[in-house]
């Protein structure tokens, strides 16, 4: 029972914060600003603790310092002190005179990342994509039949014309103009697909919050009734916003009179 109450209180807080964030859609207001600050504060605190307990503590401190007894910190893998020093050197970025010291760890980091990334990125993002774009169209039933072949031809044309649109060494006139135009249409179709998915994504977030509010309302009402409650919450929320606006308006008037 106690746990149910605890869940109800937490979800109530969550619903309140959700509505406070949505209130920004109407206008900037203290509810929104409070929630925004709360979110930033909690997120920063959470991230710091997670990084401490999953990064710095097990991969550096626990390895260097075995802790038994406390002064015997050389008993562990003492050589980890060197990456530790490199990490600390990053902080010299805040000093104008010693900022150059931070370049050493950055050089290490970029060097390692480049070494790992360049061959793999080249293979996977350039070569693999290139080979698999310019394959001969397969019309066989096993590959998906006639429409699969057509789809592969469209992809080849789309890629070539799309690339040509960014090729400015020849003027986009005549045949080249037509090719570039096909290219821009292909790009627009791509952007359209991304836009459609983005709209779906944003609406999904809103729907999920409404579902959360409904579920919260259902837990508070015996035997359900969450949806009717959500309508009332929505109406109350609008009334609250109107009231805030009226109070603001009334407060403004005397100043204007002066």
């Amino acid at each position, binding site marked *: 029972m106690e746990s149910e109450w605890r869940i109800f209180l937490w979800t109530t807080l969550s619903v309140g914060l959700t509505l406070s964030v949505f209130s920004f859609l109407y206008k900037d207001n203290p509810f929104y600003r409070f929630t925004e600050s709360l979110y930033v504060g909690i997120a920063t605190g959470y991230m710091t603790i997670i990084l401490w307990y999953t990064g710095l503590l097990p991969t550096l401190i626990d390895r260097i310092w075995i802790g038994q007894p406390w002064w015997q910190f050389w008993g562990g893998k003492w050589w980890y002190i060197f990456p530790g020093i490199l990490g600390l050197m990053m902080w010299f970025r805040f000093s104008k005179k010693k900022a150059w010291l931070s370049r050493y760890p950055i050089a290490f980091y970029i060097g390692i990342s480049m070494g790992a990334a360049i061959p793999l990125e080249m293979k996977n993002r350039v070569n693999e994509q290139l080979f*698999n774009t310019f394959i001969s169209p397969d019309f066989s039933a096993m590959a998906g039949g006639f429409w699969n072949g057509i789809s592969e031809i469209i992809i080849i044309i789309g890629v070539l014309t799309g690339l040509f649109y960014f090729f400015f060494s020849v003027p986009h006139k005549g045949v080249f103009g037509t090719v570039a135009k096909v290219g821009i249409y292909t790009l627009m179709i791509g952007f359209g697909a991304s836009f*459609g998915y983005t709209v779906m994504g944003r*609406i999904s977030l809103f*729907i999920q919050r409404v*579902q959360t509010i409904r579920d919260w309302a259902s837990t508070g009402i015996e035997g359900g009734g969450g949806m009717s409650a959500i309508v009332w919450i929505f109406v109350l929320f609008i009334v609250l916003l109107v009231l805030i606006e009226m109070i603001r308006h009334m407060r403004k008037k005397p100043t204007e009179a002066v």
Partner: protein
Amino acid sequence: MNIFEKLSKLDRRWVFLILAVVVIIALLVDFKTPLRINKEVQSVYDFMEALEPGDYIQMSIDYDPGTIAEMHPMTYAILEQAFKKDVKVIITALSINGPGMAEKAMLDIMDSVRILYGKELVYGEDVAFLGYKPYPGIVILSMGQNYRISFPQDYYGTPVDDLPIMKGIINYDDVKGVILITGTSGVDFWISYANGRYDVELAVGLTGVMAADYYQYLRSGQIFGLMGGMLGAAEYELLVKKPGPAMEAMKVQVWAHIVIIVFIIIGNIGYFISRRKGGVS
């Protein structure tokens, strides 16, 4: 100024209000939206169905609370399918807010499998949650050598070698594949490093915003399946015959999209009328 011109200059807050009303009404009304299963979602389902009891998969739950609307339904559906089939799951989180998401999903599904199917899943034997480590690229590369390099202990501080599920599990070679559910750009690391370097069988569940950018990897075979946003999640819920929040959300999506399309059309008509009159250059 005619009606279209007036509407094209409508205060955007009216659009928000109308959209909110439509979403709430659509949730109130009980109706179903027909869903067609796309082959990129079907292939994830087929992969999961082909697994035998005792097989291993890795799930990387790399999303933040901001994208749970799209990501949680995918994670829940796949985890439940795996547990139902006695497939062993190794969970990792390479996004900083991922551990909370992963732990909640794991515990919720362990509970629901116990209640719905009477299966008492044991942490450490049926599932392990290795936790979070920063720098996804380096962690993904290291897991290809040995999970213990990046994850000597699990999320709860137990040494990985003390978990029965991890006995004999060294690296990606010992899992049938990786299902990545992500709302971050970490998916690029998984494709380049896990698939590119170690030939890991990789399927991805992405947010709607990201989905369109990753279809080319599907075509090149670098990923074998893709679930895109709420639609992908709803299709998967349909496949596992477990209607959930994603399927419910799709009926709302339809009406919300209609409203947006109507506003786009009105806005464009207003724009063209204004341009004809010389109002807009």
